[in-house]
């Protein structure tokens, strides 16, 4: 063979190499553009978006499997959100501890991790492989960072070519992860905005209805008075039973209207320096008869050393009234159950008002919904606004409300008010 021929062959080989390399680059670029398109098209469904992103990543990076691993900060677990690969269905219920495995390390450290020989990596957790029978050789993990908070990671498994993951793979994966993080943030923001909008709309509608309701109730109350007066004059006798029923139900309607008004924005708090013990004290006094009638015990233990603090006394009164009323309702079926009301200080500067009952308690699903407007477990007796109003008033005070509950054992509500 001549020298010239050899150089020709070499040139052709080089060109082929360059062509192949630019084809790969083109594929990767197109893939990246595709993910960007995906992210901007399906903003309202995170589930769908994640599934598509994970599929696309598997394709672009030429790997065997990929998953979005999200951090569940409440449960302190890592959950496999969307998966590709042969063992995807087996892993969909799989969970890791917050710092478990290479992905846990990536999320905790908020940094990209590449392992081309998992056997040598002490961080590698074999639990998933053992469960599925899958063999993991190489892992590329990139964190999903939203405002410096790591919400999860993209875990990319087993590069199909022999060399494992290289620098370009890392760059590509990070590029995708950045976009995914923006998408997550957008979804979170739009959900929050939607929720706020919904709340405002409900507030406006509720307040409008409540104003009308109150006006009509004024008329009903007047009519009832005039009727009662006329009947008394005509017969010399007041037919109490019917009037009592009307009175009682009008009072319930009035309570509902009041709750609706307090719940919507139409209420202006009036702050004044207040002896906080007086508020639960007077509510306990008011509710004592009701407690006795249903066979419950209502106790009040004030902390006499409390200083006066600035609150809207009418608002706080409404909160305590709602909470004690709920506590008594929860104790209805348990003869001799006790409702303890107390005041005190915590964290040196916070004033706490606690309402603790030995009633029926609430399960997790109920606890998750109790502060939502129009949620009620009391049938016709509840307006579904009491706790919603309570939370609104508490928030107006820059205070917080906490609840602990055990089914069949009881519930404790605590309002923490900022001190002076």
């Amino acid at each position, binding site marked *: 063979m001549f020298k010239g021929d050899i150089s020709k062959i070499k040139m052709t080989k080089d060109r082929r190499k360059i062509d192949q390399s630019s084809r790969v680059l083109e594929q990767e670029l197109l893939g990246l553009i595709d993910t960007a398109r995906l992210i901007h098209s399906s903003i309202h469904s995170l589930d769908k978006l994640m599934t598509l992103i994970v599929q696309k990543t598997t394709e672009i990076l030429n790997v065997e499997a990929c998953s979005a691993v999200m951090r569940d900060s409440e449960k302190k677990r890592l959950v496999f959100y969307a998966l590709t690969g042969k063992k995807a269905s087996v892993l969909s219920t799989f969970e890791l501890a917050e710092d478990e495995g290479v992905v846990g390390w990536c999320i905790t450290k908020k940094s990209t991790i590449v392992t081309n020989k998992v056997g040598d990596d002490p961080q590698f957790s074999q639990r998933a492989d053992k469960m599925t029978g899958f063999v993991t050789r190489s892992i590329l993990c990139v964190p999903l960072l939203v405002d410096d908070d790591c919400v999860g990671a993209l875990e990319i498994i087993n590069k199909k070519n022999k060399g494992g993951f290289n620098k370009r793979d890392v760059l590509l994966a990070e590029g995708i992860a950045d976009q995914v993080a923006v998408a997550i943030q957008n979804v979170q923001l739009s959900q929050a905005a939607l929720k706020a909008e919904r709340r405002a709309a409900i507030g406006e509608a509720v307040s409008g209805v409540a104003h009308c309701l*109150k*006006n009509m109730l004024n008329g009903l109350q*007047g*009519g009832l*008075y*005039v009727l009662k*007066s006329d009947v008394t004059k005509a017969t010399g006798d007041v037919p109490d039973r019917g009037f009592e029923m009307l009175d009682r139900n009008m009072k319930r309607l009035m309570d509902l209207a009041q709750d609706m008004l307090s719940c919507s924005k*139409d*209420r*202006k708090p009036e702050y004044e320096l207040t002896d906080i013990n007086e508020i639960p004290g007077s509510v306990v006094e008011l509710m004592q008869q009701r407690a006795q009638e249903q066979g419950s015990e209502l106790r009040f233990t004030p902390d006499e050393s409390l200083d006066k603090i600035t609150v809207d006394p009418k608002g706080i009164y409404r909160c305590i009234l709602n909470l004690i009323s709920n506590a008594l309702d929860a104790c209805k079926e348990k003869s001799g159950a006790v409702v303890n009301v107390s005041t005190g200080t915590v964290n040196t500067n916070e004033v706490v008002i606690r309402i603790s009952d030995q009633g029926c308690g609430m399960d997790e699903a109920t606890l998750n919904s109790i502060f939502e407007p129009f949620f009620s477990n009391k049938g016709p007796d509840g307006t579904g606004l009491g706790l919603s109003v309570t939370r609104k008033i508490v928030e107006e005070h820059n205070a917080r409300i906490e609840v602990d509950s055990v089914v069949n054992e009881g519930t404790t509500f605590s309002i923490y008010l900022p001190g002076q």
Partner: protein
Amino acid sequence: MSDTQKILVVDDSEDHIMFTSQILEDNGFQYTVARNGSEALDALQKERPVLVLLDILMPGKSGLNVLKKMREDPDLNSIPVIVVSGSGEITGVDMKTGQEEASESYGDDVARTYGEFIHDKLEDFKPDAIIGKPVDPANLVAKINELLP
């Protein structure tokens, strides 16, 4: 209270007039009725009532106008006034109606919402008592007895 001494009831709601009239009758009070601010000002001159039960939100001249005129007039200044009004007007909550009337009567002196405006004006004009609707008859009678000369 003699037969000629009357309480002036100022309200545009027939329902409320009927309700208040019944309370007054049942408790032996004489009364006369005005259905808007202008009628109220006429009645104040002609009837010389001993006490006024005054609603605030009324078409035409509002209760605030009546109260303002009474406070400015030395002959009417000493007549006790009980404002009987919806809670929104009294607590100064956000109310969208009435803004126009307020700016017409009080120029630039109009607060952010009409509810707040009334709330502030009530503090300026100092009625002798304020009772929120729905009216508790016993409370109303107690206030009247307390304020009657």
